[in-house]
């Protein structure tokens, strides 16, 4: 009996928990708390946070190669399948109409990618700090946080630096949730009151045929110029084609509802598996969290500055605020641009105008990801 009691005691969490695991379980709890009470990207932070808790339970080895989280990670993230399916679902949800109505605004979605490449440089510079040693692949995976696009970040990180995936995913989704806090000060700092009050003319109507042709065109351009971006862009275009073609609604509905929901649950839990204390609690993680916020801020600034340039060139037809939406973080960043615009002028509705740069930002970061995968991968 004593032997049995001892065996049972030796299998308790009280006996086995390490400080690091307790700390990470608390982190998981905090992510869940923020997701529920503050509405921070709950669709992903709740599964990630919960997965993080499960991954730090001793004895059970849920994140091990034979545990549920380990299996999900191996089959869905290591393989790249989950982020690509999410991208398909995103494609099936996204209306590229605003982008097609005024394509010139895509340039804002291009400028905001400066956050990615500047951060790449910053990550490498961090190597001067003793104890941190990022390879070029690590730096590229971290930099992609600046793309403000969850599946892109996960896909690139799973290819270039899987051991950093947990921190990268947490940083990416956390900062996407923090967009309403991070962006407005930068936007206000860089623009004048008059610029922020700029009203924009109504968007033209975009026909069905143009909408069908767009995903095919986009894929074609990616094939010709940057095939390494085609897994991501291809699935985005596939989902969007399912949506726009109008003859396979049952497929596009499944892609943007049940399928993306199932994959989101699995993806979140699987990312959580990378929050195991021994892998997560490293100096690198702190570096990643720091670099992530730098990436977001620089990206926002670059977008706004390009907005100011367009404001100047078009003679005041473009409100520079919508440049901030170029970082992606769909649709949060567009809403933030709208809100800051409303603060400056109560009758200034920028939401639809910001959606163009916003979805252009998704394309922009997929392109940036393609460059990184082509040269660093």
């Amino acid at each position, binding site marked *: 009996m004593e032997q049995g009691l001892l065996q049972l005691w030796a299998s308790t969490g009280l006996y086995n928990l390490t400080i690091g695991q307790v700390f990470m379980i608390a982190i998981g709890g905090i992510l869940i708390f923020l997701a529920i009470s503050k509405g921070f990207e709950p669709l992903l932070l709740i599964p990630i946070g919960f997965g993080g808790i499960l991954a730090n339970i001793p004895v059970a080895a849920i994140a091990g190669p034979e545990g549920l989280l380990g299996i999900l990670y191996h089959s869905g993230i290591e393989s790249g399948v989950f982020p690509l399916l999410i991208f398909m679902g995103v494609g099936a949800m996204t209306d590229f109409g605003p*982008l*097609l109505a005024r*394509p*010139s605004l*895509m*340039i804002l*979605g*291009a400028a905001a*990618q*400066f956050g*990615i*490449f*500047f951060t*790449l*440089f910053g*990550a*490498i*510079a961090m*190597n*001067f700090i003793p104890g941190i040693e990022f390879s*070029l692949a690590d*730096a*590229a995976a971290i930099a992609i946080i600046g793309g403000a696009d969850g599946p892109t970040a996960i896909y690139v990180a799973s290819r270039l630096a899987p051991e950093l995936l947990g921190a990268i995913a947490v940083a990416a989704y956390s900062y996407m949730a923090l967009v309403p806090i991070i962006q407005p000060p930068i936007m206000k700092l860089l623009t004048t009151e008059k610029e922020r009050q700029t009203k924009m003319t109504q968007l033209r*109507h*975009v*026909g*069905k*045929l*143009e909408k069908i*042709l*767009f995903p095919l*065109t*986009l894929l074609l*351009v*990616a094939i010709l*110029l*940057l095939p390494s971006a085609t897994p991501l862009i291809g699935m985005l275009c596939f989902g969007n084609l399912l949506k726009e073609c109008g003859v396979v609604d049952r497929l596009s509905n499944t892609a943007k509802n049940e399928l993306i929901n199932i994959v989101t649950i699995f993806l979140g839990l699987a990312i959580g598996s990378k929050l195991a204390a021994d892998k997560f609690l490293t100096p690198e993680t702190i570096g990643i969290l720091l670099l992530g916020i730098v990436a977001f801020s620089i990206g926002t600034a670059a977008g706004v500055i390009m907005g100011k340039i367009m404001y100047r060139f078009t003679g005041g037809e473009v409100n520079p605020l919508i440049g901030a939406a170029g970082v992606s973080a769909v649709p949060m960043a567009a809403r933030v641009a709208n809100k800051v615009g409303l603060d400056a002028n109560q009758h200034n509705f920028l939401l639809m105008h910001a959606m163009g740069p916003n979805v*252009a930002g998704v*394309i*922009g970061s997929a*392109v*940036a990801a*393609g*460059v*990184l995968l082509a*040269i*660093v991968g």
Partner: protein
Amino acid sequence: MDIEQLMMQSLQLLGLGMGAVFIILTLLICIIWAVSKIVPEEQPDVIPVPSDRLSKPGHQHIAAIQAAIHKYRKSR
């Protein structure tokens, strides 16, 4: 590989990357613009504005109700 070399490489990536992003997105802008010129313009579906202010609960219900009332009115 020493840090300086890495920094050179990352600077180079900055140039190449932003270049690629701008080239590809600019190309897309041109194509989208060209396509929008080629594709025959399409009239947006005009949604008929119901004159009846009651239309919220759905046209079928209203139709049914009007029919019922009409019938009742006749049956008197």
